[in-house]
């Protein structure tokens, strides 16, 4: 336990000490919010509602905000695994690896660090809610926080897996960008992913971000008050094998996914002889 705390604490201290990273990590989601929430919202609303008669107000910004929070979680948590490569480069990984802390603590500590940092960023985005003219139920915002932490942990695991096989930070950034952008676009974060061609639909259903985004939206947007058509338009009727999935199943999927990546990451730290 002490080992997990040590690794978690170190990543947190370093995050708050690195002003450039702190600043940079907020600019990206704000930029996306400006572009999608402000600039493109009209176009997106027309596109999404062109074949259906919505009848009532459909607010794209309300749809995209949880998506952008999830996107921020994804970016931050995956990229924070880069610290593993930096630790190898700067030698600190040796200090960790020769110490008696268990290898699973290293993986869990790193994931907890990434999850904490990304959750903090997500929460800070909540401050923009009034500025965007949105309103979410306060309780649902509180409820979504533990889930954001879980999602951050799961996604940082993806980063850890890449970090364990890639040895340069440049290579890591390049590869992770190639992976992360499709994960965002094929998750329903920015636009609904219903009606995808078959092969792409498989990718969508395997993408953990899809369920992350879906849970975020279902918790934050009070879906019971929305009509079926609006739900359909927002792509909130996610089905797997023709069956609509529940929030519980989605959380379970992410939980299982997290456990699997922890196991693989632990194995890779066991093999590492830095």
């Amino acid at each position, binding site marked *: 336990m*002490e*080992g997990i*705390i*040590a690794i978690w*604490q*170190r990543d947190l*201290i*370093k995050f708050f*000490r*690195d002003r450039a990273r702190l600043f940079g990590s907020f600019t990206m989601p704000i930029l996306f919010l400006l572009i999608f929430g402000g600039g493109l919202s009209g176009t997106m609303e027309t596109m999404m509602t062109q074949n259906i008669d919505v009848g009532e107000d459909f607010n794209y910004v309300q749809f995209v905000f949880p998506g952008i929070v999830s996107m921020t979680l994804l970016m931050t948590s995956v990229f924070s695994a880069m610290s593993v490569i930096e630790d190898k480069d*700067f*030698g*600190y990984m*040796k*200090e*960790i*690896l*020769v*110490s*008696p*802390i*268990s290898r699973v603590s290293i993986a869990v500590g790193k994931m907890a660090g990434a999850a904490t940092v990304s959750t903090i960023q997500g929460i800070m985005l909540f401050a923009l809610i009034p500025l965007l003219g949105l309103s979410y139920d306060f309780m649902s915002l509180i409820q979504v926080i533990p889930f954001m932490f879980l999602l951050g942990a799961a996604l940082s695991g993806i980063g850890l897996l890449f970090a364990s096989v890639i040895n340069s930070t440049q290579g890591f950034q390049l590869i992770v960008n190639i992976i992360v952008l499709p994960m965002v676009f094929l998750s329903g974060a920015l636009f609904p992913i219903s009606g995808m061609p078959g092969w792409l639909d498989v990718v969508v259903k395997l993408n953990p971000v899809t369920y992350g985004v879906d849970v975020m939206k279902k918790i934050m947007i009070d879906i019971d008050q929305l009509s079926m058509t609006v739900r359909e338009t927002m792509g909130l009727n996610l089905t797997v094998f023709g069956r609509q999935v529940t929030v519980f199943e989605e959380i379970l999927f992410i939980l299982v996914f997290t456990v699997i990546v922890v196991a693989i990451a632990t194995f890779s730290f066991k093999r590492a*002889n*830095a």
Partner: protein
Amino acid sequence: MNSVIQVTDLVKTYKNVNAVKGINFDVKEGEIFGFLGPNGAGKSTTINMICTMLPPTSGSVVINGYDVHKQKDEVRGSIGIIFQENTLDEKLTANENLRLHCRFYNVPKEKRHSRIQEVLQIVDLIDVQNKRVEEFSGGMKRRLEIARGLLHYPKVLFLDEPTVGLDPNTRAHLWKYILKLKEQEGITMFLTTHYLDEAEVSDRIAIMDQGEIIAIDSPTVLKDELGGDLIELSTEDNDQAIEEIQEKVTGADVTVSGDTIHLKVESSDAFISNFIKTLDIPITKLNIRKPTLNDVFLAFTGRNIQTSEE
């Protein structure tokens, strides 16, 4: 004295290369054990196996009663390692680096503060403990690493090239701290270095070459084994001087390197006064010295390279 490290028939084979060919040695409690060898001798491979970082092909290493392969965590808790390269987190302060180390090694919470102050005292860094490590000089960083290596009271401290890349002044300073440690704490040290003059502080030295231990003893014994004294001289005409020496002088091995003639004799006291009288050519430079570890090292590894070429 008890052995704190026992290495038995240790072998490491990479594909077709035998990096370590079944070595045996013991390190006694409280001693400084010097581990020397030319590059590629298998030194790093051996150390990595001893420090649980590399699984051996066969053979065993026992540290503080624990098997390094089967009881990795117990071994890791019993040793402290000062690596050749910097392994501090430079973005953190000295104190933060030490606090993290306490957590990694499960130092009891109530003892952490006093231990950190204690090790900082030993290496004289108590006043700068809240500065970030990136502001430290090379020597200060090394001292901090040594302090960190001591935090969990290891049975054995591994020092891998502890003074590499430091200026002579800082090197001397650092050795002062290391020797102070041995005196005050009686800690066992496993030392590798390329500076043979530094290896003189060792109680015993092992020389490794081509995957085997080719000599192991105290520096004094090793030097005595080499025997006698070394006389180095330059004359106005070296060629003629050598002729004269070969004609008139007995009981000396003569070798030449550059413009210096080396004579190896059993005892310089008995030899030198007669020798100077015998020589007609004026001597321009004369130096008499005891063999150093450098001579020992050259003698051992040199001989070994020759035999392996045959």
